[in-house]
């Protein structure tokens, strides 16, 4: 069944675009998260017990010069993943229940050939370290993708789209101010 076909008696669907750098979670059956990915990666998390789902969308850059050499900005990547997990927990999900899908990470731009691959590798490694089961992935290649995810059911629809629909390849910037600021009481 196509997602576009209305289900009799179902609430009207609200489509929410997940922008680069965002992490959103919901238990509402009337929400559908949607995003278009080129080199970016989207993580979809779902707790089948509490019917809570969430999606993030990121493209990590190389780390700042003062940080030791990981291939992408792992500090910021862990932060963006933790934001998603915390949004899920705030909606009632349990970390031990979480199932994941990963999408994106295409190398659509010849000048940034490896950035999609590096982001995909970061996402896979994060899930492995956190013990979150990766149920499905569609990563790499050279084509842009559109992902529609219903957080309350965990249903995903994935389509290949023309590259011109993908957002421009710009790594998710860290916040310019207040990153890691320390306030002593």
């Amino acid at each position, binding site marked *: 069944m196509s997602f576009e076909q209305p289900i009799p008696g179902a609430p009207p669907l609200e489509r929410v675009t997940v922008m680069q750098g965002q992490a959103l979670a919901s238990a509402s059956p009337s929400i559908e998260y949607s995003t278009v990915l080129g080199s970016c990666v989207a993580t979809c998390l779902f707790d089948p017990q509490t019917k809570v789902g969430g999606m993030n969308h990121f493209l990590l850059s190389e780390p700042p010069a*003062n*940080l*030791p050499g990981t291939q992408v900005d*792992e*500090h*910021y990547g*862990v*932060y963006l*993943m*933790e*934001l998603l*997990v*915390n949004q899920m*927990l*705030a909606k009632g999900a*349990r*970390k031990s229940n979480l199932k994941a899908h990963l999408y994106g990470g295409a190398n659509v731009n010849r000048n940034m050939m490896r950035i999609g691959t590096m982001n995909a590798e970061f996402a896979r490694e*994060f899930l492995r*370290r*956190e*013990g979150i089961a990766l149920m499905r992935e569609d990563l790499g290649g050279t084509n842009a993708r559109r992902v529609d995810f219903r957080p309350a059911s965990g249903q995903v629809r994935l389509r290949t789209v023309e590259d011109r629909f993908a957002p421009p390849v710009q790594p998710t910037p*860290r916040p310019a101010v*207040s*990153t*890691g*600021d*320390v*306030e*002593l*009481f």
Partner: protein
Amino acid sequence: MSNTTRILTVDDSPSMRALLNHALSGHGFDVSQAEDGMAALDWLAMNEVDVVITDINMPRLDGFGLIERLREGSRHRDRPILVLTTESSDEKKARARAAGATGWIVKPFDPEKLVAAVRRVAH
């Protein structure tokens, strides 16, 4: 007795614990890790530490609960406790302060700022 500052990091994310361990060990600190507030209490019952760095959102016992439990007794009443969290709300910051936290750091953390804060609060 060693002069090395001993730090306990409390975070349910292995990825975040690894980042903290790398950042702090690289600056000469002696770093131990706990995966949530309960594991931290168990570890602290058997070990000495100079500074605790704790996340807020954790299973079993969260960061607020950990701080409250540590401040209840005399042994950790003056122990520096830094909160390291993705939370940015003033309400949660005020709650951590009221519970007895020493400082508040918003993720993603800057290793240099974190190290400076630890050195500042370590007795």
